């Protein structure tokens, strides 16, 4: 017996599944762009702060519009982004972990190493400032006081640029932080770490851009800021195609050039002004790194 209903059911299932496959194939042909460079896909490995602050939502579409490339942004900590560069899994890196970056450039994995922009880190904490560090000029001394007063501090713990900066500050304070009740690691990006620090009413080190972007949810306030050691400097570099022939060298270079182009630098300087009343990043293309913060 061949029931009509059963036939309809089967037909429905078939049509449903075939339509899914059809769509999947369409999606594959989609990334064709007006100018269509030879290899249109550029993999950008970058930090969570550029994504969580919303900067890339502005810059990437602009780059794609101008050049016809399609950017695959992989936002991870700077440590992971640099590792991707070292393995040739990315074409261009936008990162903020200067010591580790220079290491990569010296080893020959990164080329076209250029200064892009900066903002700054700050220590934020509960408004009533239980550690009593508000207004201190030295971040290292402030950290020491947080530890001495046994106040909680939340660390990124993910080898990101922010984490490396934090560890350097602890080093300057002569302290080796040990994970325990007061010092905790989240292992997550800046945005998630801010939420956790806020819930735990703890101190943490953050970049200004992510903090401003999240300010509406966060009761923690800046307590130590403005020190030169707290500068947060972003560089761009192309992954060296001589080390990794599969790298999209032209695409990487195009993004590299784009980041330091005057028009892009202009966009960076205005980013966030309308929303937060202040710029989140300060463009630095062509400047000398040593002059920053003067």
């Amino acid at each position, binding site marked *: 017996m061949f*029931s009509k*209903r*059963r036939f309809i*059911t089967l037909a*429905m*299932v078939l049509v*449903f*599944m075939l339509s*899914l*496959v059809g*769509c*999947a194939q369409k*999606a*594959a042909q989609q*990334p064709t762009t007006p100018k269509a460079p030879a290899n249109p*896909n550029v*993999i950008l490995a970058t930090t*969570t702060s550029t*994504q*969580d602050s*919303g900067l890339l*939502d502005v810059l990437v579409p602009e780059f794609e519009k101008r050049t016809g490339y*399609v*950017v*695959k*942004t*992989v*936002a991870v900590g700077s440590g992971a982004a640099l590792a991707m560069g070292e*393995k*040739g*899994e990315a074409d261009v890196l936008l990162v903020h972990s200067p010591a580790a970056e220079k290491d990569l450039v010296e080893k020959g994995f990164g080329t076209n190493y250029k200064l892009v922009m900066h903002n700054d880190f700050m220590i934020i904490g509960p408004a009533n400032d239980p550690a009593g560090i508000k207004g201190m000029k030295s971040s290292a001394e402030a950290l020491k006081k947080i530890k001495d007063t046994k106040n909680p501090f939340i660390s990124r713990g993910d080898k990101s640029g922010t984490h490396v900066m934090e560890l350097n500050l602890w080093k300057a304070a002569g302290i080796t932080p040990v994970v325990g009740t007061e010092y905790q690691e989240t292992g*997550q*990006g*800046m*945005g*998630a770490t*801010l*939420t956790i620090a806020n819930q735990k009413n703890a101190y943490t080190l953050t970049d200004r851009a992510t903090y401003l*972007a*999240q300010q*509406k*949810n*966060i009761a923690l306030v800046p307590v130590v800021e403005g020190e030169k050691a707290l500068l947060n400097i972003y560089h761009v570099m192309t992954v060296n195609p001589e080390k*990794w022939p*599969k*790298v999209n060298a032209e695409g990487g270079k195009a993004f590299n050039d784009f980041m330091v182009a005057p028009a892009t630098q202009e966009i960076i300087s205005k980013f966030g002004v309308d929303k937060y009343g202040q710029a989140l990043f300060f463009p630095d293309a062509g400047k000398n790194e040593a002059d920053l913060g003067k």
Partner: protein
Amino acid sequence: MELIWDGLVQALHVLITLDPTVMEVTWLTLRVSGTATLISVLIGVPLGWLLALKQFPGRNFLVSLANFGMGLPPVVVGLWVSIFLWRSGPFGALNIIYTPYAIVIAQSVIASPIVISFTLAAIQQIHPRIRMQLKALGANQMQMLFSLVREARLGLLAAVMAGFGGVVSEVGASMMVGGNIPGQTRVLTTATVLEVNKGNFDVAIALSIILLLLAYGVTAVLTTMQQWRRES
């Protein structure tokens, strides 16, 4: 409480205005997870079928593997698929890491054991006398297959639902092999994580509601198919 309210308002707003960005993400989610479910059905139903009906040495071990695979952690699958698809990996030349294809592959790996195990259970549950009866009536292989699929329909559609539910809700593998790239590999789960990281909790709530609606919608369609005969 205000936050939940904001989220609900946001969700309603997105649904009424059919916000193009969110619709694109939702559509991609449906396509990717639907395709992965389809692939896992194509792999899982025949394998579950074989495991249910054939006796051979090592069968019990394979069955236990399939049952174990139902709980395969998506991050583990994501990591291994990444390693294989990276430029430095054995399938690097395919250039499909950070594309929807990569997510489809990872999700198919996640869903296949679920479909195998559910199919196996569904077919094994059919009374052996039905098979003998079919044989006695002179059914050939194809007729036998269709008759048994019809008998096992409840369980087979449960397999499809479990497979789809498993992949549409996972975030670890999609994030790792897809990269959460807007317009390319951003699906509802990874978009939700990003909005939480950005501190846009209202948008995150809205996305979570849309994900639930999508998962429910697909399950409802499949349930209707499953229960169809009951109405007649």
